[in-house]
């Protein structure tokens, strides 16, 4: 009898060969394998397990971790509506509901004919051109009712996504303000030539003089990181570019990869020469999969120009190449040690640190992990010198920062400023009116009110990974915080108790307030959770998960007070809400099907 697994060998073997049957590439293999049926078939796991020498439990465990991998059929068309607060403000929920009714499917379920599923997903990085969705992992922007109707038709007609109108997929850069990084266009290879001329040690010296700090959020000195990694003993050294860009409201790396990819790869190559690496990885978030072909083409072009590969620019001892690894819908994989686990084909759980990646990174070897923008900036420094760069920005925040501006403003998009720019300057440049609040650096950052708009974007005042979400006075800041809390709950990796359970408790509390059962008692509970998550969580996600609630309670208390119908503690359980399932099953919604509701 033909082994069940053999029917899968046909499409799996080429994938396995491409990855040299390397179990470290498990995630990449699974992503490719899923393309065949739209999910990972149970028999396919048998084949992979045999060929890779991995237990089935490991393959299922990895698949189960990533939102974009499915072990069950999830439709020929998998539609995911981006659900950042900015998508909400642009009406994504109504559009999703409309597509659901059009196609007779409930959110989160697969249609009865197996044709499609519709669900929400965390921010897809298109906040400046939302609402957005992903269909089979390809992004569509600027959703309108017409566009959604057309999408419904295309699905009903079973037209393959590759044949859908190109205009649906026309993602824009929206660069509104250029400074030294976005405004310059050095010839590909020029920074590498400068490096070879001045020597690796001197280039590192220039990067240290520039006082460049990481653009991914934490702001660690890039020069020191490269030096620590160079000096760490190991058989191999690795360069990793963090293009996971999962922080809601952040989309500058998307534009850098779309229009400045050469610069990013060149920065990685500089790093490789300095630390002595021959292999590098770009970890590209699954939401940006549509950029993959373009990025592969840029890499190929660089190989042809001898800017990558063996004997780069004729230097016999300068060998370096870059592979692109895709993520699969897990924000936590932006955390550098979780990212490395994911690169190794594992569940994206942050490691115990120390040791840090500079000494024990990919395959436990010394590894530099930097943000996309950080690598791009190193090219400029290599070409124009560290002192020049250090002269831009402020004393402790040198250079420029690219902000991803979205929300209530006339001109959302990318704005590059020297560090030290005030929030009010940015607001006036992007045409924001009647602004109530700005969320700086996404849900894990800070939310500020108008009396703080004279504060500055800089590591010493308002550090940011780039997100700048604007809310005008019509917005309900409670709902903003609630959206962010749901994000953290969905993205907690689940490794440690405080964050795994705490993010659920927190989102339950916010839902309780939203249902009108809140009392001041709940504020004390939230404060207690915050202290616990800050002090006992395993990584930055847990540490910052309470920030959005605490910030908005401190600054926009009336948005909460409105929901405090009670002075004393009230349980979260609501009998009338519990009956909603029965109402749905019986198709009733008349007064007789409701209990008396006092709070509405």
């Amino acid at each position: 009898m033909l082994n069940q697994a053999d029917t899968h060998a046909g499409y799996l073997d080429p994938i396995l060969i491409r990855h040299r049957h390397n179990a470290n590439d498990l995630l990449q293999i699974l992503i490719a394998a899923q393309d065949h049926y739209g999910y990972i078939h149970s028999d396919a796991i048998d084949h992979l397990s045999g060929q890779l020498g991995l237990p089935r439990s490991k393959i299922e465990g990895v698949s189960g971790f990533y939102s974009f991998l499915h072990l069950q059929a999830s439709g020929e068309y998998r539609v995911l509506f981006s659900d950042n607060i900015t998508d909400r403000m642009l009406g994504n929920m109504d559009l999703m509901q409309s597509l659901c009714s059009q196609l007779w499917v409930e959110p989160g379920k697969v249609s009865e004919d197996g044709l499609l599923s519709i669900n929400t997903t965390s921010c897809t990085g298109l906040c400046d051109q939302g609402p957005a969705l992903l269909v089979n992992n390809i992004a569509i922007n600027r959703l309108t009712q017409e566009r959604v109707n057309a999408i419904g038709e295309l699905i009903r007609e079973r037209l393959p996504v590759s044949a859908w109108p190109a205009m649906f997929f026309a993602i824009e850069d929206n660069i509104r303000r250029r400074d030294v990084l976005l405004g310059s266009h050095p010839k590909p290879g020029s920074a590498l030539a400068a490096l070879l001329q001045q020597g690796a040690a001197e280039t590192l010296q220039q990067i240290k003089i520039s006082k460049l700090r990481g653009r991914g959020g934490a702001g660690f000195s890039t020069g020191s990181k490269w030096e620590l990694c160079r000096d760490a003993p190991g058989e191999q050294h690795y360069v990793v570019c963090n293009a996971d860009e999962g922080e809601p409201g952040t989309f500058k790396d998307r534009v850098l990869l779309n229009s400045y990819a050469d610069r990013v790869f060149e920065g990685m190559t500089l790093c490789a020469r300095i630390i002595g690496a021959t292999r590098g990885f770009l970890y590209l978030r699954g939401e940006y999969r549509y950029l993959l072909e373009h990025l592969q083409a840029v890499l190929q072009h660089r190989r042809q120009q001898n800017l990558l590969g063996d004997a780069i620019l004729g230097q016999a001892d300068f060998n370096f190449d870059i592979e692109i690894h895709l993520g699969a819908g897990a924000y936590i994989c932006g955390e550098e040690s979780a990212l490395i686990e994911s690169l190794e084909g594992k569940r994206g759980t942050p490691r115990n640190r120390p040791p840090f990646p500079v000494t024990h990174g990919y395959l436990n070897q010394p590894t530099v992990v930097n943000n996309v923008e950080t690598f791009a900036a190193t090219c400029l420094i290599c070409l124009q010198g560290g002192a020049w760069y250090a002269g831009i920005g402020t004393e402790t925040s040198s250079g420029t920062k690219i902000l991803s501006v979205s929300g209530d403003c006339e001109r959302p998009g990318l704005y590059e400023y020297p560090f030290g720019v005030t929030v009010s300057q940015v607001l006036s440049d992007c045409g924001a009116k009647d602004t109530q609040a700005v969320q700086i650096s996404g849900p894990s950052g800070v939310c500020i009110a108008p009396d703080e708009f004279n504060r500055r974007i800089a590591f010493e005042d308002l550090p940011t990974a780039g997100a700048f979400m604007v809310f005008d006075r019509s917005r309900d800041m409670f709902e903003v915080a609630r959206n962010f809390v749901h994000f953290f709950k969905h993205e907690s990796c689940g490794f440690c108790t405080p964050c795994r359970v705490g993010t659920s408790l927190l989102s339950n509390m916010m839902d309780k307030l939203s249902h009108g059962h809140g009392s001041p008692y709940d504020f004390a509970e939230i404060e207690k959770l915050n202290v616990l998550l800050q002090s006992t969580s395993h990584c930055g996600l847990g540490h910052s998960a309470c920030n959005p609630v605490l910030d908005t309670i401190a600054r926009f208390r009336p948005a909460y007070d409105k929901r405090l119908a009670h002075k004393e503690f009230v349980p979260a359980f609501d009998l009338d809400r519990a009956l909603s399932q029965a109402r749905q099953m019986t198709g009733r919604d008349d007064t007789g099907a409701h209990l008396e509701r006092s709070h509405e």
Partner: protein
Amino acid sequence: MSQSNTFTLDGKTIPYSEGQTIIQAAMAAGEYIPHLCFNPEFKPHGSCKLCTVKANGRQTASCTQHPAPDMVVESDTKEINDERRTLLQMLFVEGNHFCPSCEKSGNCQLQATAYQLNMMSPHFDQFFPDRPLDASHPDYLLDFNRCILCSLCVRASRDVDGKNVFALSGRGIKSHLIVNAKSGRLADTNFSGDDKAAHVCPVGVILKKRVGFAIPIGSRSFDEQPISATPHPQGACPVGPRSNAATLPPHPTVKDA
């Protein structure tokens, strides 16, 4: 430069050797730090966070943190025990723990730690997750309702038994234990009662069949002595009745639930 290879734990001097973590050195010195995912026989994991201490003023998991010379470690303080109690409450509401009907009651490290830390109620609303049992195996039963995701069975099966019978799947609050079988059933794995993995679960998930309640509740390991006295008794597989213990104290999960 200080040559001392000691640190202080709540004021007591604790010697340590190269490579030991805080909890390992503390246990070697006979000092108890609450813990659940740590088991001295396995590589530390660092996930439950019960073992959190303050080391030189900074909170950290003592099962993974290495001591430094003269480090000042605080463990048995009100502040830290309050946090540990909250972590326990989180674990209790996350799963379904009906201790009075649990075969592991009295031998359960979760329950015993809750007594140790005076946890009087689960405090939070219960999540009541839906986690079906796996009774497929002839000799063993898996009651996932009680799983605290400590990954000890995963480590034991992988690192000691060389089998990979257990693994974690899912993410976040949907994280859950799976077994290595296409059917998803324990009976279809190569699991055996002789496996190390059959004997490491700190709670009542992996249970031997047909020996239920052989030792009466009230006469079990932690009924006799608190967990701080014997954190890892040979209690996972009770062998016979011991002395008559005092009546069972009121149960953590039933009070003002």
